[in-house]
C-alpha cells in the first residue's frame, strides 16, 4: 500500500534526508520518499502492518525533527 502524508513545518533539508534513512530501516517498508520541497512523505509498506509501520515512521520523524508534524 502506498500513501502520501503532508509534513507540517519540515524546515531542514538534511533532516528530510535523515528521516528517509531512518524510516527505510523499519521492517516492512518497501519505499519511502520524504520530499522537502513539497513537504510530503510517500510511504509504501506491507498492507497488513501498514498502520503499525506508519506509527513507527511518525516516531522516526519526531525523533529527527520534533517540531515537524505528520498530518494523518
Amino acid at each position, binding site marked *: 500500500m502506498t500513501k502520501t502524508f503532508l509534513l507540517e513545518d519540515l*524546515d531542514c533539508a538534511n533532516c528530510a534526508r535523515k528521516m528517509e534513512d531512518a524510516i527505510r530501516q523499519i521492517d516492512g517498508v518497501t519505499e519511502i520518499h520524504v520530499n522537502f520541497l513539497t513537504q510530503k512523505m510517500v510511504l509504501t509498506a506491507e498492507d497488513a502492518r501498514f498502520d503499525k509501520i506508519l506509527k513507527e515512521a511518525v516516531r522516526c520523524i519526531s525523533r529527527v525533527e520534533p517540531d515537524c508534524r505528520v498530518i494523518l
Partner: protein
Amino acid sequence: MKMNRRQKRTLWRILIAAALFAAAELLSHSVDALDGLRSLPLFLIPYAVIGYDILWRAARNIAHGQIFDENFLMAIATIGAFFTGSFGEGVAVMLFYQIGELFQSCAVASSRRSIAALMDICPDSASVVTENGEIQTVDPAAVAVGAEIVVKPGEKIPIDGVVLDGTSTLNTAALTGESAPRAVAAGDAVASGCINQEGTLRIRTTKPYGESTATKIVELVEKASERKARTENFITRFARWYTPAVVIGAALLAVLPPLILGSGWKEWIHRALIFLVISCPCALVISVPLSFFGGIGGASRAGILVKGGSDLEALSGASTVVFDKTGTLTEGSFTVTAVHPSVGSAEALLETAAHAEIYSDHPIARSVRESYGEAPDARRVAHTEEIAGRGVRAEVDGHTVHAGNSRLMDDAGAAWHACHHAGTTVHVARDGEYLGHIVISDRPKDDAAAAIAALRALGVSRTVMLTGDAEAVAAETAAALGIDEWHAGLLPADKVSLLESLLEKERGGRGKVVFVGDGINDAPVLMRADVGVAMGAMGSDAAIEAADVVLMDDRPAKIPQAIRIARHTMRIVYENIIFALDVKALILILGALGVAGMWAAVFADVGVAVLAILNAMRALRVPQ
C-alpha cells in the same frame, strides 16, 4: 519579503538580541568594573535571547540520540567560544547563524511558493449540472465520468471531456507552453488545465478527475523527485559521511596539535569549534534537489514533462537523437504534395481525379478530394468501379477516367511516366490518354528541419531517422530535414535492434541516445533508449508509462528546447555543488590554519545555503 508568524518572531528576537549585544560590547569596553570575566552576565543575556531555542533543541535531540544534529553542533560551538573566553564571538556567531537561518527559511518558503504556483493548474472546484438542470459547485474529485459540467469564461477546465455545447477559444499555455489559443466547438475533446477564454462551455466528462490531464501532470512532476539523478545520489551519500567526518576532524584538531606541541589548548579548541559550525551539508542537500525540481517544473510549463532528475541529467548529455518518422518528424497524414499535369492545368487534373475518386474511401482518394477543395459534383460521375490494388475507373463528364498506379495505366493503355518525387503517385488517364499524375506524401512538420538544425547547433553529433516506409520516401525526408542517417523498411522489432546497435556505439563515450516517437507501437524502443521521448502522448497511457519525457504537443522543436532546459539545470546543479564544496573546503582549511574565524564559518554554512537556493531558483526560468 513575506514572513510567517514564526519567521517574524525570529526577526524580533534577532533585533532585540542585536541591541542587547551592542549594549554589552559597549559596557564591557567602557566600564572598567565590567571587563574580563565580570562581563560574562552581560553577554549571556543576548545569548539566551537569540539561542534558547537552539540550546533547547540540542538538548532534546541529543536525548534522542541525534549526535550529529545541527542544533547540537551549533550549541557546542558557541558554548565552546564562551569557555575559551570569547564571549562576544559566542553571541555573534549565534546571532549570525539565526540571521542566516531566517534568510534560508524565507528563501525556501519563497521557492515553495513558486513551485506551488507552477503546479496550480488543477482547479479545486467544478460546476456540475444536476438531473433537474441546476448548477452545483462540487469537489472535482467527486464528479462521475459522463457527468455534465459547465465552464465559464476565465475558468479552468477541471476534468477532461468532450464539448457538448458552446464555442470558445482555450488557452493551453499551462499544458503546452504555447500561447496561441485553440478554438473548440461541440464534439471537440478538451483537456483539464486549459483556460476557457470566451464562451461558456458545456462538457461531458470522459475521465475521472484523478486521471485527467492536469492532475496527471502535477502528479508526474511531484513524483519526479523520486527518480533521483546520479548527482543527487552523490549528494545524499556525501551528506551521510560529511558531518561525522568534519566532527571527527574537529575533535582531532582540538586534541592532537596541543598534545604534539604541548601548548595552545585554547587556540586549537577555538579552531576546532569553527569546524563544528560548518558541519551541516544543508546548502547541498537543499539546493541540488531544488535545482532539479525547478528545471522539471519549468520544463512542464513549456509542455515538456520530464519524469525524473535522472532523465533530465541523461537528456543534458544527448549526443545521438533518433526519431521515428511518421507522426514524429512528419505530419502522419497524407496530403497532395505535387500535381504534374502532362495535359492541361494542374487544377483540371485535380478536378478530374477528385471526381473519379468521388466514392472511394481510400486515404489517398480522400487527400485528393481534400486538395481539390470543393465537393465533387456527383451528377458528373457515373459507373464508378474500384479495381483492387490498382485504383479506380469512372465515367466523368462522359469520358472514361482511370486514376491509380502504373499497372492501372498499363491496363488503360496510357503512356505514363514515373515521377522524380518520392511518395505515392496517382496517375490519371482519360479515354486512354495520359493526363499526368498527382503525388501524395506525408509532409514533414513545419518545424522539423529547424529542430534538426537546432540539435546540431547544440552539439548533438548524430541524428537518425527510423521508418517502416520505403527507401525512396525515407531518403527524401531525410535529405529535406538534414538528417545524418536513416533506416527504411523497418519492422517494430528492427527498430529495437537498430537502437541497441546505436547504444552500443555510444557505450564507449559518455553520450546518451535519445529516442523520439509518437508513442504508438514504439513503447519497446522508448524503454530501451537512454531517454525515451513520447510526443503528443497525453492521451496514451502506455506511452506515458514507457517514456522518460512526455511532450504535451507534437512539435519536434520541443526536443532541442528540452535539451537546453536539461543543460541549463545541470549547469546550475554543478555550480551549486562546486560553489558549496569549495567554500566549505576553503573555510575548513583556513579555519584549521587559524586564518578564518567563526564569522566566515557561519557564512560558509548558512550564507552558502541561501546563495545556493537563490541560484537554484534560476532553474525555474526556462531558456527559450
